[in-house]
Structures are given as structure tokens and as C-alpha cells.
């Protein structure tokens, strides 16, 4: 009974003090999520759709008048399309991974299977990309048709020469298919379509609650960072294979953008972190951290800076070149991304009370 009295007294005292003290309003995660949807996610996918449209046009121009100039132009648009798509990696959730849309394997399943692409080109049946292997469609397949396997000037001439008939038809179909999928991303996230942005902000539909939405967004930041380190840099670098290089295991070896894509992925993480995209400033995960543990923010900012510095130090090299000619530089990138992952997954996750997990099993 004494214990009960003590407990009741303490609880009553605490309630009294608490009711008098009034606290600061807790950070509004729903507002953050809503801002991310409108400021970062939807604009990024709209940009992707615009670039995909430009790529469709460029492919049509290339096929209408194959030349090294139109090829170069198409390649530039391809690179721009990849860049903006890579900047969507940090929110590759919802329609990207979930059925029925599950757009990821329709847009960027890598590495490309050249043999399967050639099979499709050699076939006599009508082109049906929905029924085509994921390894023979999407950006990697377009990259294969634009860059070939070997690269170099002689290859460019051969590519231009080969761009006719069914090969061009397949390229056109690939770019049209990509544009349609890009439009699907926009539709899925916009209020006029599936309204994933609204679901995310309000914690409904795919997302069980605002808390769950915030958790998913944060986990995707960590996952993207880890993916860049392990899969996109570490695997080709031989980190997972006893130092034996796996240069074929790159995201865009043919287009030479593997390194640039990885860097764009980190920028994508930073966009969600800061809540900023294309000079429009919204509310980001960083603001959440500032409300809970401000001293950590400079550490995260420094980790981002270190990653950018490490990437920038590699200049315009492809990942192939960097791995063979500047392995220390690649190692620096690997370690910098690892450090960024560590501070996000360990310190920031604690500060934000976000559990980095994917399975809501019981606890006690």
C-alpha cells in the first residue's frame, strides 16, 4: 500500500507539474512528409518524366537521321535522364517496389543482358515490353543500344550504322515505354492518381501511420546509402569478392555513369535530408533532427560534405577508370559513404527514435 501511495503521489505530482509547464510542440512529422512529397518527390518524378520525354524524342531523331551527332545528342539526354532518375533513389518506395505498379524492374533492372536485347531485336513478333525480360528493357537496355558493349569511336560508327529497321523500332519502343513508366511514377505520387504523397503524409493506405511513414522514409535513406556503398561501389571494387574486381557488376558500365549515378543517389539522400530540390526549400529530415538533437546536424552535414569531396576528387572518370587507375580514390568514396551510413543508421536513428528495421515483429 505504501508503494501504491508513493507511486500515486509521484504520478500526481508529475501530472500537475506537466500540466502547468506546457512544452514545446513536438515536431510535425506529417508536415515534413507532406513537404517532402510536394517539394522533393513529385518534382523529381516530374523532371524524370520530362527527361524521359526528351529521350523519346532524341531516340526518334536518332532513328530518323542516324549520325554521330544525333547519337551524341541522344546519349546526353540519356545521361540527363539517368541523373534525375538516380536522384529519386532515396524515395524508391511505394509504386517503385510495390505491386501492382512495381515500376523498379520496368525502369532500371541492371546489369543489362545484351544477349536478351539482341534476341528481342532478332525476333519477328511484335514488341511487347511488358512481357519482355526486365534485363532487356528500361534504361540499361537503352544504354546498350546507345553505347554498345565496347565503346570507342569505331563502336560509335557501328552503332550509327546499325540503327535501322527492327533495332531502331526496339529503341523507340524502349524509350516510349520508359516515358510511360515515368508518367506512371508521377501519376502514382500525385493527388490525381494513387496519391502516394498524400498517403505518406497522412499515414494511410500503404502506410499504417505517420510514424510508419516517417520510418519508411528514414529507412530508405539508410538503405540507399548502404546500397551505394555495398552494391554500386563495393561490389565492382571487389570488396565482396576478396579483392577480385567485378567490373561487370556496375549499374551503368556501358554508359559510363555508374559513378555519377552513385553520386546522384547520395544527392537524392541529401535532398530528402534537407527537404530541398531545384532551389525550392521545404521541410526535410534534417529539420526533424534539429528539433530533437541539433548537435548531430553538423556531423551529418560534414559526412555529406566528405562524400561529395570524395566523389569530386575522382573527377569525370568512369568507375572502370577510377577502380583501375585510382583505387585509393574509390576507397575514399567507399569509406566516406560508409561513414555517412554509420552516422545515419546509428546516431540519427537513435535521435529520431526510428527503428531501422523492416519487420514489425513483437518485442518486449
Amino acid at each position, binding site marked *: 500500500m505504501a508503494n*501504491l501511495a508513493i507511486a500515486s503521489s509521484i504520478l500526481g505530482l508529475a501530472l500537475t507539474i506537466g500540466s502547468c509547464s506546457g512544452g514545446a510542440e513536438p515536431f510535425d512529422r506529417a508536415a515534413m512528409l507532406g513537404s517532402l512529397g510536394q517539394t522533393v518527390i513529385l518534382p523529381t518524378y516530374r523532371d524524370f518524366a520530362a527527361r524521359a520525354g526528351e529521350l523519346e524524342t532524341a531516340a526518334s531523331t536518332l532513328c530518323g537521321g542516324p549520325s554521330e551527332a544525333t547519337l551524341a545528342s541522344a546519349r546526353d539526354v540519356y545521361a540527363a535522364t539517368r541523373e534525375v532518375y538516380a536522384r529519386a533513389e532515396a524515395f524508391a518506395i511505394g509504386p517503385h517496389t510495390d505491386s501492382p505498379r512495381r515500376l523498379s524492374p520496368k525502369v532500371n533492372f541492371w546489369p543489362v543482358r545484351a544477349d536478351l536485347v539482341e534476341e528481342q531485336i532478332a525476333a519477328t513478333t511484335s514488341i511487347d515490353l511488358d512481357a519482355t525480360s526486365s534485363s532487356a528493357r528500361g534504361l540499361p537496355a537503352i544504354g546498350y543500344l546507345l553505347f554498345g558493349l565496347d565503346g570507342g569511336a569505331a563502336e560509335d560508327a557501328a552503332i550509327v550504322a546499325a540503327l535501322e529497321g527492327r533495332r531502331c523500332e526496339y529503341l523507340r519502343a524502349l524509350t516510349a515505354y520508359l516515358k510511360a513508366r515515368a508518367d506512371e511514377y508521377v501519376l502514382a505520387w500525385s493527388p490525381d492518381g494513387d496519391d502516394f504523397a498524400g498517403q505518406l503524409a497522412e499515414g494511410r493506405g500503404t502506410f499504417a501511420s505517420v510514424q510508419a511513414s516517417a520510418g519508411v522514409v528514414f529507412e530508405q535513406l539508410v538503405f540507399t546509402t548502404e546500397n551505394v556503398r555495398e552494391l554500386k561501389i563495393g561490389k565492382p571494387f571487389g570488396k565482396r569478392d576478396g579483392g577480385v574486381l567485378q567490373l561487370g557488376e556496375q549499374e551503368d558500365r556501358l554508359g559510363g555513369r555508374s559513378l555519377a549515378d552513385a553520386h546522384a543517389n547520395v544527392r537524392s539522400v541529401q535532398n530528402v535530408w534537407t527537404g530541398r530540390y531545384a532551389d525550392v526549400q521545404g521541410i526535410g529530415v534534417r529539420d526533424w533532427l534539429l528539433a530533437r538533437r541539433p548537435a548531430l546536424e553538423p556531423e551529418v552535414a560534414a559526412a555529406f560534405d566528405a562524400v561529395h569531396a570524395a566523389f569530386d576528387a575522382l573527377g569525370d572518370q568512369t568507375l572502370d577508370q577510377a577502380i583501375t587507375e585510382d583505387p585509393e580514390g574509390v576507397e575514399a568514396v567507399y569509406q566516406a559513404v560508409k561513414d555517412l551510413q554509420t552516422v545515419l543508421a546509428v546516431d540519427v536513428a537513435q535521435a529520431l527514435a526510428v527503428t531501422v528495421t523492416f519487420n514489425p515483429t513483437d518485442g518486449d
Partner: protein
Amino acid sequence: MTDVSDAKSAAAPADPTKKSAAAPADPTKSSASPPMRATTDARSPRTSLGRVRDHLLVPVPATSLAIWRIAFGLLLAGNVLRYWQAGWIHDLFVAPRVMFPHWGFAWLPRPEATGVAILFGAVFVGGLAIARGRHLRLAAAFTFVPFTWLELLDRSTYLNHYYLVSLVLALLAVLPSASRGEAPHERAVPRVTLFALRAQVGLVYFFAGVAKLRADWLFEAEPLTTWLARHTDAPLVGPLLDDRWVAFAASWAGMLFDLSAVFLLLARRTRRFAFAVVVLFHLATAALFTLGLFPWLMMVNATLFFAPDWPSRVRDTIAKRRARASDAPSGLASESVVPSGARAPEGPRSNRVRLVVPLLGILAAHFALQLALPFRQHLYAGDPLWHEQGFRFSWCVMLIEKTATLDLRVVDAEGRETIVHPREELTPLQLRMVPTQPDLVLAYAHHVRDRFEADGHGEVQVYADGFASLHGRPRQRLVDPEVDLARERDGLLDKPWIVPLRSPDTGRRQIAADVELHDPTRQSGSRSRQTGAHHPPVASIHATSAPTTAIPNERPAARSALLSASSEVTRASAAAGGRAPAARP
């Protein structure tokens, strides 16, 4: 663990030594209701042990146990359905490419998908059989085997309440069950059955309270501060959950509740109130945290502390009220009420208890072990919340919020280095548990060692590369990265390769310090000094001399947001009291 008041209300005498060997209240029924074995012990010398034994073997009504048993069995069966519906049977027991059996149980066969389904099916059937109550001991033993088998397969799935379920099943398998053949309200069990179950449940509460007597829990309100902050979007109470005083109040109330619950439940005067608190407490935890079976199990278990004939009393009371409401003559009402076991003139019929001495010996050994196990964590140097040695099977319930990362660095005989990322082969649950628990890090390292050696890499060395943070403390190494875990043995001895927890201060203290540092009124301190002294950038180790950022426009925005937000946090955290920042180790 037995409430004397219960015994007074039960049909059996409170102290069999004062009455002649627990003679039945109604001698005319004695031939039909043979006294328990305990009655024969009246012939034995009245030693202390004999008196204890007699006391424990006094029959008490079995109606409360019947209610509890039905609920317990249905909870078990329902839990199987819940696992099946959520896909956890596959995700946790079939899908894993590697599992981490509890220490000493590596020999336990890991069943394939069909075997797992059979084990879960057996638990389901067993739960229903327990609820039905016939052949209870057999049903409990039948359920214990598959349930415990599943639990022992993988340390990463360990939960305190599943351990409790295993213990309760084991107790049910050896404890005398209710007599058979009579009407339900007339059945009885020896008091030892109720005593043992109450003791088991009481130990959970008590040691869960003892485990909360830690600085982090009491003086930092961690991990509740962190956990409650997840629910700031909850309706009505959401904004309160981000306030420190709420976390403190909840921490202290939780500790006091755990320490006192069993005593308040045992005492007749406080029992109803305590039960109401138990229900409210567990409903609150069920609403706030993902605890699955735990709150419901503990609410059901709390009913064990009521008088053993409480269902009969409740039924009597309801019947009397109905009779009054219908203006029926009181005599009719009393006739319409089935006499409870506690009030039945013949008293509850007792069952036979064989092997009394071995049973009491087993129980004594069991509870001695139960009393000792929770303390073993203190045999290891350092903070058990950090090293987690001796942490399982100790009722350390809801005490830790730890985050961690882990890579394994494998060096083969030729010096080639491979980085193994746990995500490659661990399930999401394992991925969360393994990096935070040193013994699981070791077990995973051994798995990787064996895998590499089986793949023809020869003898390999395995090093852990990761960081962890406990309750917001600065991250630090959890496992010494220079120690070859492939050569370390798993066991109960202290693990010297666990890096001791360096910072005594949780993140909460640091937040208070952060707020001081970021207070706009103290802007004379340079930003670099603030960050340099407190949180050296992690990337500084690998920083290059290249230009700093590719997105220059974002940094000034970051700074302005930092300053504008810091003032709000100053207000929010000032009440918690600022303390000096801890230096990052």
C-alpha cells in the same frame, strides 16, 4: 506467494495442521471424497518441511485456474494464427538462411518448412487442448516441446514472454492438475499448483522491476523518452508524449508498478485496485508498443492472484443480483445458484498427488534457479545494457534501445580481404538484432567462418567492423575490430572482446548540452568549436582536400535552419536541465 485470505475463503482449512489432517468439512462426504495424500502426512513427524508440504498440498478450488487455463490456451492458439496470418512462420523460421540457436542448443535440429508447420500446428492444437483442460499435464507437455523447440532455434527471436510461456508450460506439465469427474465448480487442485504459477508470474513482475533500477531508466527516463516520442502523432495524448516529464513519470511508475504489482495483487485489500492498474498498464503498453502476446498474457496471468474460487463468487453475486432484480424469493435464488467450491458443504474433492517429494524438489530447484538467473548479468564486468551478457532469461523487459551497424571483414589464408554485409543473408529481424548483441555477432562470425572454409578459402580470420549507440550515447565500437572472432569461443564466460561502454551519459544529457551550445544567446562560441569539441565529423578520418560540397546552396540554408530550430529546442529541453556535454571517446 499464497494469499492467506484465499485459503480462508476456500473450502479447505487454512492450516491443515490445526485441523485434523484437512478433514473434509462434511464427514458424510468423506468416503466419496478421499482426502489428498497430504492428509496421510499427518502421520509423519511435524517437521517444518512437513508443515510446508502439508500447506502446499491443501486442496483449493480449481475454478480460477480453469478460467486462466482456458484463456492461456486460447492465447497460445491465437498466437499461432497471428503468426500465420502475418507470415512470420515463414519469415522467422523458414526463410532465414542462418539461425542462431541458444547457447548449448546447437544440436537441436532445424526443421524444414513442413517441420516448422507441424511444430506450429502442434502448438495450436496444444493450446486448444490446454484450454479444454482434459489431460492437462499431457497437453502442456505436448505444447511445451514444439513451442520451446521453436524458441531455442534462434536467439534473435528471443522474447521474455515466450520464455515465460515455456516455463509455464513446463510447470503445468509437472504440477498436479484439477481432479476429474466432478462438476467444474467442485474440482480442486492442491495449493502448490496455484502457488507455483503465482510465483512464476510474480517473479516476472518483480525482476522486471529490479531490472529497472538502473540510472538510464530512473534518471534519464530512457528508453521510454525515445519510445514515447515515436507516438507524438497519437490523438489526444500525442503531444504529451514528447514531454520529458511524461517519460519520467512513466519510467518511475513502471518501475514501482513492476516491483509492487505482485504484492498488491496478493493482498486482499489492494487486489482489485492492483488488477485494474495491471489491466490499464498493459492496455497502455499494448497501444503504444508492439508487444504482441505479452500484455494480454500478463493480464490473464494476473487473474491467478484472485481467490481460487473467484469465478464461483462472481457467478453467485450475479445470480443473487438477478434474483433480487426479479423479486424472486431469496431462498429460490440461493437454490438457483450452483454452490461454489468454496462454499460447498462437501468441499472440493481432492485429487491424488503422487511423488510429492520429487515434485517439491523439482519446484524448489526450479525456483532457486529462477531466483539466481536474473542476477547472473552482474557477474560480468560493465553495463549489462551494453554487453547484454546474462541478459536473456532475466526478465529484462523493455529496457534497451540500441542501434548498430555491422560488417564482417574476412581475411583468408592468402591475405585476401572480403567484406561480408549481414544484409546479404540475414532476415530483417536478424539484421536488427545481430549487430546490437555481441554474442550474436560472434555466432554470425562463426557462421561466416564456416561458410568461407566450406567454400575452400582455408582457415580464415573474421573481424567485426561496426558501431553501436545505446540510449542516444555517442556511437562507439561494440566489438573490438582487432579481435579475430573466428578463434573466439562462444560460452558463458566474460567476453573480453566486447568494448566497454565509454560514455556514462545518455543522449538526453547531451541534448541538454546541445541546447546550451546552440542557444542563440551564446553565439560567441564558434560553430567549429561546438562541433569540434563535441562531435568531430565522422568523415574527418577519411576527409580529402577536395572542394567541400557539390550543392553549395544547401549549406547556408542548413545553418539558418539550425539556428532557428535551436531556440525552440532550448525551450523544450531547458526544463530537463542542462548538463555538461560528454566528450566523444
